[in-house]
């Protein structure tokens, strides 16, 4: 009995496999969704579990058999991998509004209180006296956004070429003293262990750190140009069929786009895609210029070019 809970809970439970910085968000969403679901449906209350980790690691565990009903990962490529292996339909991103992205975010700099190193823009990161904390792009979704934000910025500079962008990244990563495997690990290195001068982070992660963890310890610096990060969500078709949870899983992902879901997202520092609700939270999100992943060629291209074995990221670590 004790060894087979996976089947025992499948009928009334839902498993959301998510990425690192969404712990607080989905704790809240899970609670309010199960309350909403219980109001509409008579019967046993639904139990939702959410598992967190580096986006790539989480996708890998779903691929190898973790019984996820829903995936809410850091970037579309990790869900594409699942689609390629037949866990969900190839057109999954078209099934929900806004490219299946209920909340967006962006990449910002978290610095020590008062910004002692005077960091304002991407060139400041490669000054001699600056140490940068960012996780490993090979294992962390957030780190891939960090990396691509830097890449996109460098490309857009006057006279910017891929070669120059590569040189910038090579210098940047020479300033990184520790590569954690997940975004939350990197935040812990910066926040709890006092490592580095600047943390490249999800905006939501940075806001959480300044407002909830150490209000008087950190400042947020929003660079003039950064990337628009779109972490998508999807129902894992094959698993919900096996668990008989298709209906509730669909309701869950749709709930994320509902007014209530969007509000909870805003409360946890994610940018709601619903413009009215975004406007209600406008005071917490700085306005800045952004570019999106499509402008870099989309995830398929970017993954092959940068993060595959022997790609640009590998080359910046080869002497």
């Amino acid at each position, binding site marked *: 009995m004790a060894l087979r809970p996976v089947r025992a809970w499948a009928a009334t439970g839902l498993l959301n496999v998510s990425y690192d910085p969404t712990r607080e968000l989905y704790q809240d969403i899970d609670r309010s969704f199960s309350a909403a679901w219980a109001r509409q449906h008579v019967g046993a209350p639904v139990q939702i579990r959410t598992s967190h980790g*580096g986006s*790539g*690691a989480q*996708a*890998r565990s779903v*691929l190898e058999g973790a019984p996820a009903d829903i995936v809410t990962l850091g970037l579309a490529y990790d869900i594409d*991998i699942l689609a390629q292996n037949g866990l969900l339909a190839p057109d999954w991103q078209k099934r929900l509004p806004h490219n299946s992205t209920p909340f967006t975010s962006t990449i910002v700099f978290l610095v020590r209180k008062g910004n002692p190193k005077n960091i304002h823009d991407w060139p400041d990161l490669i000054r001699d006296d600056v140490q940068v904390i960012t996780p*490993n792009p*090979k*294992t962390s979704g957030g780190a891939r956004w960090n990396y691509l934000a830097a890449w996109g910025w460098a490309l857009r500079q006057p006279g910017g070429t891929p070669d120059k962008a590569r040189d910038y990244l090579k210098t940047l990563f020479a300033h*990184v*003293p*520790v*590569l*954690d*495997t997940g975004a939350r690990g990197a935040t812990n290195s910066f926040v*709890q*262990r*006092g*490592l580095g001068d600047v943390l490249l982070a999800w905006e939501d992660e940075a806001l959480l750190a300044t407002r909830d963890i150490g209000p008087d310890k950190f400042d947020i610096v929003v660079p003039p140009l950064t990337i628009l990060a779109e972490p998508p969500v999807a129902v894992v078709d094959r698993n919900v069929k096996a668990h008989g949870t298709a209906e509730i899983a669909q309701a869950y992902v749709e709930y994320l786009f509902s007014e209530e879901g969007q509000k909870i997202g805003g409360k946890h520092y994610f940018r709601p895609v619903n413009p009215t609700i975004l406007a209600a939270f406008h005071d917490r999100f700085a306005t800045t210029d952004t570019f999106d992943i499509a402008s870099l060629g989309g995830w398929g291209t970017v993954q092959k070019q940068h*993060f595959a*074995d022997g790609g640009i990221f*590998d080359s910046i*670590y*080869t*002497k």
Partner: protein
Amino acid sequence: MTAYLSRRLGLPRRQRDPLPGFGLGLGLTLFWLGTLVLLPLLALVSRPWQEGLHRGLLAFAHAAHDGRILSALWVSFGSAVLAALFDLVPGVLIAWALVRSDIPGRRIIDMLVELPFALPTAVVGITMATLYGPTGWFGAPLARLGVHIAYSRTGIVLALMFIGLPFIVRTVAPVLRNLPADVEEAAAILGASRAQVLLRIVLPALHPALVTAFGMAFARGIGEYGSVIFIAGNQPFHTEIAPLLVVIRLQEYDTTGATLIGFVLVAVSLLSLAGISLVRRRLSRGVG
């Protein structure tokens, strides 16, 4: 004796051996070993060749030229050797304190020595990173002196030393206790100084035990993951250990790549252990 006789006489052993249970015992042992160790290890060994011998060889050749894999293996191997070596001195000192000295608090130390074994490795990693990080109890004063331990190879060695210390103490202490004290006393009576007694009499007798202890600490260290990743820094080519690279490859959906590194890691640690046991056999023969 009976087994020996029956073999000499060419008799079927089971007719002559009074002890029952050979067939059953061997059967259960093989089943247990087969399902829990051989089956999964077979999966590890066979995976690289799954797409044909040629592809497998190619993958190995590729790995042999992959600087990142080589340096990760080197970091794991080198740190494990250093940590096991550095553990020998404090290990022997503590073992001596436990069985040969009369310093107060020996029994408490005896139990404290087991602490590294009792802490889960992930907790060891987090606490070591906190202790030696730039704001930690040790890290902060050291950082003022310009010494940085966490997130460097020194950090890896330090974490492995913590993990390996009980292996040294627990292996050396029984041997020290069984060392006949009269030889030392005789040497002392003959005018040998304490240092001479230690160097000429005690240490040579300890050699085989030291080699065994080194081997155990090394074997634990080369594969260690949980305690290291928090304090290592995990930079490719610099502070990335081989087990972490296995995990990274898995997360890149590259199971074959992960298997390859795992395979090499197992091979390296087995070869080293075989070498160590060879050295030990030679040493124990030399000592008599």
